[in-house]
Protein backbone atom coordinates (compact mmCIF):
# COMPACT_ATOMS: atom_id res chain seq x y z
CA UNK A 1 0.00 0.00 0.00
CA UNK A 2 2.69 2.49 1.02
CA UNK A 3 4.81 1.77 -2.08
CA UNK A 4 1.73 2.20 -4.24
CA UNK A 5 1.07 5.54 -2.57
CA UNK A 6 4.64 6.62 -3.05
CA UNK A 7 4.63 5.78 -6.72
CA UNK A 8 1.21 7.23 -7.39
CA UNK A 9 1.25 10.06 -4.87
CA UNK A 10 1.19 12.67 -7.60
CA UNK A 11 -1.87 11.06 -9.18
CA UNK A 12 -3.72 10.89 -5.86
CA UNK A 13 -2.81 14.48 -5.01
CA UNK A 14 -3.76 15.83 -8.41
CA UNK A 15 -7.12 14.01 -8.45
CA UNK A 16 -7.89 15.16 -4.92
CA UNK A 17 -7.00 18.72 -5.91
CA UNK A 18 -9.28 18.55 -8.96
CA UNK A 19 -12.23 17.16 -6.98
CA UNK A 20 -11.78 19.63 -4.14
CA UNK A 21 -11.34 22.60 -6.46
CA UNK A 22 -14.55 21.83 -8.36
CA UNK A 23 -16.46 21.18 -5.12
CA UNK A 24 -15.08 24.36 -3.57
CA UNK A 25 -15.97 26.39 -6.62
CA UNK A 26 -19.55 25.02 -6.61
CA UNK A 27 -19.97 25.61 -2.89
CA UNK A 28 -18.51 29.10 -3.01
CA UNK A 29 -20.54 30.28 -5.99
CA UNK A 30 -23.82 28.43 -5.60
CA UNK A 31 -24.29 27.13 -2.07
CA UNK A 32 -22.74 29.57 0.40
CA UNK A 33 -25.19 32.29 1.47
CA UNK A 34 -24.69 35.75 0.11
CA UNK A 35 -23.04 38.19 2.48
CA UNK A 36 -25.56 40.75 3.80
CA UNK A 37 -23.21 43.74 3.59
CA UNK A 38 -20.96 43.09 0.61
CA UNK A 39 -23.21 41.17 -1.78
CA UNK A 40 -21.86 38.64 -4.30
CA UNK A 41 -18.37 40.14 -4.37
CA UNK A 42 -17.72 38.87 -0.85
CA UNK A 43 -17.31 35.42 -2.39
CA UNK A 44 -13.81 36.46 -3.50
CA UNK A 45 -12.97 35.69 0.13
CA UNK A 46 -13.08 32.00 -0.78
CA UNK A 47 -10.08 32.34 -3.07
CA UNK A 48 -8.15 35.25 -1.63
CA UNK A 49 -7.79 33.92 1.90
CA UNK A 50 -6.92 30.29 1.00
CA UNK A 51 -4.31 31.55 -1.50
CA UNK A 52 -2.79 33.81 1.16
CA UNK A 53 -2.73 31.03 3.76
CA UNK A 54 -1.10 28.69 1.24
CA UNK A 55 1.62 31.25 0.63
CA UNK A 56 2.26 31.45 4.38
CA UNK A 57 2.45 27.65 4.52
CA UNK A 58 5.07 27.68 1.74
CA UNK A 59 7.20 30.33 3.44
CA UNK A 60 7.00 28.36 6.66
CA UNK A 61 7.90 25.14 4.83
CA UNK A 62 10.87 26.87 3.17
CA UNK A 63 12.12 27.98 6.58
CA UNK A 64 11.65 24.49 8.01
CA UNK A 65 13.64 22.91 5.18
CA UNK A 66 16.28 25.63 5.57
CA UNK A 67 16.51 24.74 9.23
CA UNK A 68 16.92 21.07 8.33
CA UNK A 69 19.72 21.92 5.94
CA UNK A 70 21.62 23.94 8.52
CA UNK A 71 20.94 21.77 11.52
CA UNK A 72 20.86 18.22 10.15
CA UNK A 73 23.06 18.92 7.13
CA UNK A 74 20.34 17.42 4.95
CA UNK A 75 21.65 18.35 1.49
CA UNK A 76 18.43 17.59 -0.32
CA UNK A 77 16.70 20.26 1.74
CA UNK A 78 18.32 22.97 -0.37
CA UNK A 79 16.19 22.25 -3.44
CA UNK A 80 13.12 21.67 -1.27
CA UNK A 81 13.53 25.04 0.45
CA UNK A 82 14.16 26.75 -2.88
CA UNK A 83 11.07 25.16 -4.43
CA UNK A 84 8.96 26.20 -1.44
CA UNK A 85 10.12 29.81 -1.77
CA UNK A 86 9.42 29.65 -5.49
CA UNK A 87 5.87 28.41 -4.97
CA UNK A 88 5.38 30.81 -2.06
CA UNK A 89 6.25 33.74 -4.30
CA UNK A 90 3.80 32.54 -6.98
CA UNK A 91 1.01 32.26 -4.41
CA UNK A 92 2.12 35.57 -2.88
CA UNK A 93 1.70 37.30 -6.23
CA UNK A 94 -1.75 35.68 -6.59
CA UNK A 95 -2.59 37.01 -3.12
CA UNK A 96 -1.57 40.50 -4.18
CA UNK A 97 -3.65 40.28 -7.36
CA UNK A 98 -6.81 38.85 -5.76
CA UNK A 99 -6.42 41.19 -2.79
CA UNK A 100 -6.10 44.10 -5.15
CA UNK A 101 -9.32 43.06 -6.90
CA UNK A 102 -11.03 42.81 -3.51
CA UNK A 103 -9.79 46.29 -2.59
CA UNK A 104 -11.23 47.59 -5.86
CA UNK A 105 -14.60 46.02 -5.03
CA UNK A 106 -14.70 47.19 -1.42
CA UNK A 107 -13.08 50.62 -1.57
CA UNK A 108 -13.03 51.42 -5.27
CA UNK A 109 -9.20 51.55 -5.44
CA UNK A 110 -6.69 48.94 -6.59
CA UNK A 111 -4.38 49.52 -3.68
CA UNK A 112 -4.91 50.54 -0.08
CA UNK A 113 -2.29 50.78 2.62
CA UNK A 114 -4.96 50.14 5.23
CA UNK A 115 -5.27 46.51 4.18
CA UNK A 116 -2.72 44.86 6.46
CA UNK A 117 -2.42 41.55 4.69
CA UNK A 118 -1.78 43.21 1.32
CA UNK A 119 0.98 45.39 2.75
CA UNK A 120 2.54 42.40 4.44
CA UNK A 121 2.55 40.47 1.16
CA UNK A 122 4.17 43.39 -0.59
CA UNK A 123 7.01 43.31 1.96
CA UNK A 124 7.30 39.53 1.65
CA UNK A 125 7.31 39.81 -2.12
CA UNK A 126 10.24 42.25 -1.97
CA UNK A 127 12.03 40.04 0.54
CA UNK A 128 11.68 36.78 -1.37
CA UNK A 129 12.44 38.39 -4.74
CA UNK A 130 15.80 39.30 -3.21
CA UNK A 131 16.14 35.59 -2.34
CA UNK A 132 16.14 34.81 -6.06
CA UNK A 133 18.68 37.54 -6.72
CA UNK A 134 20.89 36.08 -4.01
CA UNK A 135 20.63 32.58 -5.46
CA UNK A 136 21.26 33.60 -9.03
CA UNK A 137 24.29 35.73 -8.24
CA UNK A 138 26.10 33.17 -6.05
CA UNK A 139 28.16 30.22 -7.31
CA UNK A 140 26.27 26.95 -6.91
CA UNK A 141 27.67 24.84 -4.09
CA UNK A 142 27.43 24.17 -0.38
CA UNK A 143 27.92 27.80 0.49
CA UNK A 144 25.06 28.99 -1.68
CA UNK A 145 22.81 26.36 -0.14
CA UNK A 146 23.62 27.56 3.36
CA UNK A 147 23.38 31.26 2.55
CA UNK A 148 19.99 30.78 0.89
CA UNK A 149 18.87 28.73 3.87
CA UNK A 150 19.84 31.45 6.33
CA UNK A 151 17.94 34.00 4.26
CA UNK A 152 14.84 31.78 4.07
CA UNK A 153 15.01 31.35 7.82
CA UNK A 154 15.12 35.12 8.25
CA UNK A 155 11.95 35.32 6.17
CA UNK A 156 10.01 33.20 8.64
CA UNK A 157 11.10 35.54 11.45
CA UNK A 158 10.50 38.69 9.43
CA UNK A 159 6.89 37.63 8.76
CA UNK A 160 5.50 38.11 12.30
CA UNK A 161 7.84 41.03 12.97
CA UNK A 162 6.57 42.82 9.85
CA UNK A 163 2.99 42.06 10.82
CA UNK A 164 3.58 43.73 14.16
CA UNK A 165 5.32 46.63 12.44
CA UNK A 166 2.37 47.19 10.09
CA UNK A 167 -0.04 47.28 13.03
CA UNK A 168 2.18 49.76 14.84
CA UNK A 169 2.49 51.93 11.73
CA UNK A 170 -1.30 52.01 11.39
CA UNK A 171 -1.69 53.13 14.96
CA UNK A 172 0.67 56.01 14.37
CA UNK A 173 -1.52 57.37 11.57
CA UNK A 174 -4.90 56.55 13.14
CA UNK A 175 -4.64 56.70 16.92
CA UNK A 176 -8.29 55.56 17.11
CA UNK A 177 -8.96 51.99 18.25
CA UNK A 178 -7.89 49.37 15.76
CA UNK A 179 -10.18 48.71 12.81
CA UNK A 180 -11.37 45.17 13.19
CA UNK A 181 -11.35 43.33 9.88
CA UNK A 182 -13.04 40.17 11.10
CA UNK A 183 -16.47 41.79 10.71
CA UNK A 184 -19.52 39.66 11.31
CA UNK A 185 -19.00 36.04 12.27
CA UNK A 186 -19.12 33.46 9.50
CA UNK A 187 -22.14 31.20 9.38
CA UNK A 188 -21.60 27.43 9.53
CA UNK A 189 -22.16 27.00 5.79
CA UNK A 190 -19.74 29.79 5.00
CA UNK A 191 -17.13 28.23 7.24
CA UNK A 192 -17.57 24.79 5.65
CA UNK A 193 -17.20 26.32 2.18
CA UNK A 194 -14.08 28.13 3.31
CA UNK A 195 -12.59 24.91 4.68
CA UNK A 196 -13.21 23.05 1.43
CA UNK A 197 -11.68 25.90 -0.56
CA UNK A 198 -8.65 25.96 1.74
CA UNK A 199 -8.20 22.19 1.42
CA UNK A 200 -8.53 22.52 -2.36
CA UNK A 201 -5.86 25.23 -2.49
CA UNK A 202 -3.50 23.27 -0.26
CA UNK A 203 -3.77 20.08 -2.31
CA UNK A 204 -3.31 22.07 -5.51
CA UNK A 205 -0.27 23.70 -3.93
CA UNK A 206 1.13 20.33 -2.84
CA UNK A 207 0.70 18.99 -6.38
CA UNK A 208 2.45 21.95 -7.94
CA UNK A 209 5.20 21.72 -5.32
CA UNK A 210 5.84 18.09 -6.22
CA UNK A 211 5.96 18.85 -9.92
CA UNK A 212 8.29 21.81 -9.43
CA UNK A 213 10.56 19.89 -7.07
CA UNK A 214 10.80 16.96 -9.47
CA UNK A 215 11.59 19.39 -12.27
CA UNK A 216 14.38 21.04 -10.30
CA UNK A 217 15.80 17.65 -9.29
CA UNK A 218 15.74 16.46 -12.89
CA UNK A 219 17.62 19.59 -13.87
CA UNK A 220 20.27 18.95 -11.25
CA UNK A 221 20.62 15.29 -12.28
CA UNK A 222 20.92 16.26 -15.93
CA UNK A 223 23.75 18.64 -15.08
CA UNK A 224 25.58 15.89 -13.22
CA UNK A 225 25.07 13.48 -16.09
CA UNK A 226 26.31 16.01 -18.63
CA UNK A 227 29.41 16.51 -16.54
CA UNK A 228 30.09 12.78 -16.42
CA UNK A 229 29.72 12.45 -20.17
CA UNK A 230 31.78 15.45 -21.27
Amino acid at each position, binding site marked *: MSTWLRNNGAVVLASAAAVLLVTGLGLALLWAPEDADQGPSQRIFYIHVPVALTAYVFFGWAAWKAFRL*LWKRDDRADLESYTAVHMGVIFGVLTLVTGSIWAKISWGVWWTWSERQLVLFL*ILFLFYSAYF*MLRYSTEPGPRRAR*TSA*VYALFGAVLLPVSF*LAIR*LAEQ*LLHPAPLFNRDGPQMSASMFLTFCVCLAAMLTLAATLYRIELTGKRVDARLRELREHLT
Partner: protein
Amino acid sequence: MSGYFADVTALARKDLLVELRSRDTVPAMLLFVVGALVVFHFALPEDSSRLAAAGMLWIALLFTALLALVRSFVAEREGTVIDGLLLAPCDRSAIWLAKSLSVFAFLAFAEAVALPAFALFYEPVTWELIAGVALANVGIAAVGTLLGAMAAAARARELLLPLLFLPLAIPLIVGGVGATLAEDPARYLGFLALYDLIFAILSWASFEYVVTE
Protein backbone atom coordinates in the same frame (compact mmCIF):
# COMPACT_ATOMS: atom_id res chain seq x y z
CA MET B 1 34.27 33.28 27.69
CA SER B 2 36.88 35.93 28.37
CA GLY B 3 38.77 34.46 25.42
CA TYR B 4 35.75 35.10 23.21
CA PHE B 5 35.64 38.75 24.17
CA ALA B 6 39.40 39.06 23.75
CA ASP B 7 38.93 37.86 20.15
CA VAL B 8 36.07 40.30 19.60
CA THR B 9 38.15 43.17 20.98
CA ALA B 10 41.14 42.30 18.82
CA LEU B 11 38.98 42.05 15.69
CA ALA B 12 36.98 45.21 16.38
CA ARG B 13 40.17 47.11 17.13
CA LYS B 14 41.51 45.94 13.78
CA ASP B 15 38.34 47.15 11.97
CA LEU B 16 38.60 50.60 13.53
CA LEU B 17 42.31 50.76 12.78
CA VAL B 18 41.75 49.83 9.13
CA GLU B 19 39.13 52.58 8.82
CA LEU B 20 41.38 55.05 10.61
CA ARG B 21 44.16 54.33 8.10
CA SER B 22 42.14 54.19 4.90
CA ARG B 23 39.40 56.72 5.79
CA ASP B 24 37.23 55.15 3.10
CA THR B 25 33.87 54.90 4.78
CA VAL B 26 33.16 57.40 7.55
CA PRO B 27 33.96 60.63 5.66
CA ALA B 28 31.76 59.45 2.79
CA MET B 29 28.94 58.70 5.27
CA LEU B 30 29.20 62.15 6.85
CA LEU B 31 29.13 63.93 3.53
CA PHE B 32 26.29 61.76 2.27
CA VAL B 33 24.01 62.24 5.26
CA VAL B 34 24.43 66.02 5.29
CA GLY B 35 23.98 66.11 1.53
CA ALA B 36 20.81 64.05 1.80
CA LEU B 37 19.39 66.41 4.44
CA VAL B 38 20.04 69.37 2.14
CA VAL B 39 18.55 67.63 -0.89
CA PHE B 40 15.43 66.76 1.08
CA HIS B 41 14.81 70.43 1.80
CA PHE B 42 14.35 70.99 -1.90
CA ALA B 43 12.33 67.82 -2.34
CA LEU B 44 9.81 68.82 0.34
CA PRO B 45 7.22 71.56 -0.17
CA GLU B 46 7.90 74.76 1.74
CA ASP B 47 5.53 74.27 4.67
CA SER B 48 5.81 70.49 5.12
CA SER B 49 4.92 69.16 8.51
CA ARG B 50 7.35 67.92 11.11
CA LEU B 51 6.01 64.47 10.26
CA ALA B 52 7.56 64.68 6.82
CA ALA B 53 10.85 65.98 8.22
CA ALA B 54 11.09 63.07 10.65
CA GLY B 55 10.36 60.51 7.93
CA MET B 56 13.00 62.07 5.76
CA LEU B 57 15.60 61.95 8.51
CA TRP B 58 15.03 58.23 8.85
CA ILE B 59 15.38 57.66 5.13
CA ALA B 60 18.64 59.61 5.16
CA LEU B 61 19.95 57.54 8.09
CA LEU B 62 18.95 54.27 6.44
CA PHE B 63 20.74 55.04 3.19
CA THR B 64 23.79 56.31 5.03
CA ALA B 65 23.86 53.00 6.88
CA LEU B 66 23.80 51.20 3.53
CA LEU B 67 27.03 52.96 2.61
CA ALA B 68 28.69 51.57 5.72
CA LEU B 69 27.29 48.09 5.11
CA VAL B 70 28.34 47.92 1.47
CA ARG B 71 31.87 48.76 2.60
CA SER B 72 31.83 46.51 5.65
CA PHE B 73 33.62 43.48 4.20
CA VAL B 74 35.75 45.22 1.58
CA ALA B 75 38.97 44.88 3.59
CA GLU B 76 38.32 41.16 4.08
CA ARG B 77 37.41 40.56 0.45
CA GLU B 78 40.51 42.22 -0.97
CA GLY B 79 43.10 39.48 -1.05
CA THR B 80 40.60 37.07 0.60
CA VAL B 81 41.82 38.07 4.07
CA ILE B 82 38.60 36.55 5.39
CA ASP B 83 40.27 33.14 4.81
CA GLY B 84 42.93 34.12 7.31
CA LEU B 85 40.28 34.92 9.91
CA LEU B 86 38.38 31.71 9.16
CA LEU B 87 41.56 29.65 9.59
CA ALA B 88 42.16 31.17 13.03
CA PRO B 89 40.77 29.14 15.93
CA CYS B 90 38.42 31.89 17.09
CA ASP B 91 34.66 31.37 17.07
CA ARG B 92 33.30 32.67 13.73
CA SER B 93 30.54 34.57 15.43
CA ALA B 94 33.27 36.71 17.04
CA ILE B 95 34.04 38.03 13.54
CA TRP B 96 30.38 39.01 13.16
CA LEU B 97 30.19 40.62 16.59
CA ALA B 98 33.37 42.64 16.04
CA LYS B 99 32.23 43.77 12.60
CA SER B 100 28.80 44.72 13.96
CA LEU B 101 30.41 46.76 16.71
CA SER B 102 32.55 48.65 14.25
CA VAL B 103 29.57 49.27 11.94
CA PHE B 104 27.65 50.51 14.99
CA ALA B 105 30.51 52.87 15.81
CA PHE B 106 30.59 54.26 12.25
CA LEU B 107 26.82 54.79 12.31
CA ALA B 108 26.99 56.53 15.69
CA PHE B 109 29.73 58.76 14.36
CA ALA B 110 27.71 59.72 11.28
CA GLU B 111 24.63 60.37 13.43
CA ALA B 112 26.62 62.55 15.81
CA VAL B 113 26.87 64.87 12.82
CA ALA B 114 23.48 64.16 11.23
CA LEU B 115 21.31 64.81 14.29
CA PRO B 116 22.75 68.27 15.09
CA ALA B 117 22.43 69.11 11.40
CA PHE B 118 18.81 67.96 11.49
CA ALA B 119 18.19 70.13 14.57
CA LEU B 120 19.79 73.09 12.82
CA PHE B 121 17.92 72.72 9.52
CA TYR B 122 14.55 71.34 10.60
CA GLU B 123 13.26 70.24 13.99
CA PRO B 124 14.69 70.02 17.49
CA VAL B 125 16.11 66.61 18.39
CA THR B 126 14.28 64.87 21.23
CA TRP B 127 15.53 62.22 23.63
CA GLU B 128 13.06 59.78 22.07
CA LEU B 129 14.67 60.34 18.69
CA ILE B 130 18.13 59.69 20.09
CA ALA B 131 16.96 56.52 21.82
CA GLY B 132 15.24 55.39 18.62
CA VAL B 133 18.36 56.01 16.55
CA ALA B 134 20.53 54.12 19.02
CA LEU B 135 18.20 51.11 19.05
CA ALA B 136 17.79 51.13 15.27
CA ASN B 137 21.58 51.20 14.92
CA VAL B 138 21.83 47.93 16.79
CA GLY B 139 19.40 46.26 14.40
CA ILE B 140 21.01 47.77 11.31
CA ALA B 141 24.49 46.72 12.40
CA ALA B 142 23.43 43.20 13.40
CA VAL B 143 21.37 42.31 10.33
CA GLY B 144 23.39 44.42 7.92
CA THR B 145 26.68 42.78 8.84
CA LEU B 146 25.28 39.31 8.27
CA LEU B 147 23.77 40.33 4.92
CA GLY B 148 27.02 42.08 4.03
CA ALA B 149 28.88 38.82 4.53
CA MET B 150 26.26 37.01 2.39
CA ALA B 151 26.49 39.55 -0.40
CA ALA B 152 30.30 39.54 -0.27
CA ALA B 153 30.26 36.03 -1.76
CA ALA B 154 28.00 37.02 -4.65
CA ARG B 155 28.51 38.74 -7.95
CA ALA B 156 27.07 42.28 -8.12
CA ARG B 157 27.37 42.47 -4.34
CA GLU B 158 26.97 46.25 -4.12
CA LEU B 159 23.61 45.93 -5.86
CA LEU B 160 22.52 42.86 -3.98
CA LEU B 161 23.00 44.15 -0.45
CA PRO B 162 20.38 46.95 -0.59
CA LEU B 163 17.89 44.49 -2.10
CA LEU B 164 18.49 42.01 0.71
CA PHE B 165 18.50 44.65 3.39
CA LEU B 166 15.59 47.01 2.63
CA PRO B 167 12.71 44.58 3.33
CA LEU B 168 14.35 43.68 6.63
CA ALA B 169 14.78 47.37 7.48
CA ILE B 170 11.08 48.24 7.14
CA PRO B 171 10.26 47.30 10.78
CA LEU B 172 13.21 49.43 11.91
CA ILE B 173 11.85 52.42 10.01
CA VAL B 174 8.38 51.87 11.51
CA GLY B 175 9.86 51.73 15.00
CA GLY B 176 12.16 54.69 14.43
CA VAL B 177 9.55 56.99 12.93
CA GLY B 178 7.07 55.91 15.62
CA ALA B 179 9.54 56.65 18.38
CA THR B 180 10.13 60.10 16.87
CA LEU B 181 6.51 61.11 16.38
CA ALA B 182 4.11 59.04 18.47
CA GLU B 183 2.43 60.23 21.64
CA ASP B 184 3.65 57.09 23.42
CA PRO B 185 7.16 56.43 22.06
CA ALA B 186 7.73 53.70 24.63
CA ARG B 187 5.94 50.98 22.65
CA TYR B 188 7.90 51.86 19.51
CA LEU B 189 11.16 51.82 21.40
CA GLY B 190 10.09 48.51 22.88
CA PHE B 191 9.39 47.19 19.39
CA LEU B 192 12.86 48.28 18.24
CA ALA B 193 14.42 46.54 21.24
CA LEU B 194 12.46 43.38 20.42
CA TYR B 195 13.63 43.51 16.81
CA ASP B 196 17.24 43.98 17.95
CA LEU B 197 17.04 41.07 20.33
CA ILE B 198 15.49 38.63 17.84
CA PHE B 199 17.63 39.51 14.86
CA ALA B 200 20.87 39.89 16.80
CA ILE B 201 20.51 36.37 18.17
CA LEU B 202 19.57 35.00 14.75
CA SER B 203 22.45 36.76 12.99
CA TRP B 204 24.92 35.75 15.68
CA ALA B 205 23.89 32.11 15.36
CA SER B 206 23.86 31.98 11.57
CA PHE B 207 27.01 33.95 10.67
CA GLU B 208 29.21 30.87 10.59
CA TYR B 209 26.95 29.28 7.97
CA VAL B 210 27.26 32.15 5.51
CA VAL B 211 31.05 32.54 5.64
CA THR B 212 32.13 28.91 5.67
CA GLU B 213 31.38 26.01 3.38
